[in-house]
């Protein structure tokens, strides 16, 4: 009798485990699709990156300014396709390391970051070049403190080193 109830309990726990796993898998699979159809700010996703409704509408408005005739379904498909292609190119460039290999991208990104640090400083302390400069210096100093910097070659001596200078 005891063996029988033990077997039943085992079967029940196994059934529960299977049901739980099935529910988990279903939730995992249905999650992104549900959020996509319910998200009214996104027209498409490209490898998980959203193409927002506002981008799509702005692009359509730009096209309608150039065109004399009203926008049709073909135009809408064309615009959506262009936005998807732009996103794919952006993703490809990032994947290929354009941030570090392409001088224009590198310079523009650095400049954008510096501008935003300086803008924040101006918003806080007014248009003072000294405080803007020190805001950038403080920001970089904080980044250095949090960074793991490992020297492979000492630049002045050209000799390989293995020690970790900062962590």
């Amino acid at each position, binding site marked *: 009798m005891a063996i029988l109830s033990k077997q039943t309990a085992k079967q029940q726990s196994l059934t529960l485990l299977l049901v739980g796993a099935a529910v988990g898998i279903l939730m995992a699979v249905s999650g992104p699709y549900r959020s996509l159809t319910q998200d009214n700010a996104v*027209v498409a996703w490209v490898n998980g990156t959203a193409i927002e409704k506002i981008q799509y509408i702005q692009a359509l408005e730009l096209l309608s300014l150039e065109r004399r005739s009203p926008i049709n379904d073909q135009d*809408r498909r064309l615009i959506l396709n262009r936005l998807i292609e732009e996103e794919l190119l*952006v993703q490809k*460039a990032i994947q290929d390391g354009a941030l570090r290999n392409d001088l224009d*991208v590198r310079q523009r*990104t650095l400049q954008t970051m510096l501008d935003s640090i300086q803008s924040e400083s101006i918003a806080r302390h007014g248009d003072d070049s000294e405080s803007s400069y020190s805001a950038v210096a403080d920001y970089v100093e904080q980044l*250095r403190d949090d960074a793991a910097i490992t020297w492979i070659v000492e*630049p002045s001596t050209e000799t390989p080193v293995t020690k970790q200078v900062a962590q």
Partner: protein
Amino acid sequence: MTQTANNSKTIFRGILAIAGLILVLEGSNTEIRHLDYPLDTLVLVNQKPVARPVLTVARQRSSTLMAGIQQQDQEPLLVQRLIDDELILQRAESLGVLEADPGIRKLLARSAINTINAKSRSLPITEPQLRDFYNNHQAVFQKPARFAVKVARFLTFENAMAARREILAGSSLLEAAPLADGTVLIEIPTSLLPAHMLRRYLGTGLTDVILQLNQEQLSQPIAQDGGLYLLHLLDQQTSQVIPFQQARSDVISEFKSRDRQNALAEALAEYKERADIQFNSSLLEQLARDG
């Protein structure tokens, strides 16, 4: 029997554990770093290499700024600057600045296009390829047909027909048009114009009619935009094919241009095939309905 059952349980648990680990790794945002930095790496900044070629470029670009600094002091300063740059770039990545800033996005897209173009540019072009291209795209390498026209706009069909009769009797459109009230002579250069220029002045509909006229032919009144138009083709020059040798440089640049376009189209098709693209169909339909 019990031993076999125990073994099976252990194997089953092992498989579950491995599957769990794989799921965790797949779902995680953590990048697994390997010590596979380039051989010419100077320093690793959060495991990202700052390599010698970057230092060389930085040295070239800052030669004027570094003019007053001793040679042996320049390199440590530059490397420190590159480390700081790398830290800022990493911060930009983590903040999602690359994806969010429209200017950077444009540069990234251009960078990807340049990489695709560089691959197609490196392929040599042979003479037979150029000849074939020229023969298959004759329309591109010809002087376009040109037309000299006079156009007048009338308010009524009667006025348009009266002017038409005058012109057919020997008057010019210039003389015949002012006979009626509300008639306007459309301002177009009197010189020979290609079809695309006519379209700019007159629109597609009227230009298409002009392209059907014979030299010195006068059209019937054409109703458009609440008026009636008379079109008089005064002179025309037919299109002329430019000989290969004369057009050679244009053939090369057009060949390269189309090659770049094809390379980009192929690359985009490949990216799309590999990408996970999902559409919010209900929203797209709603936006189409809303106009």
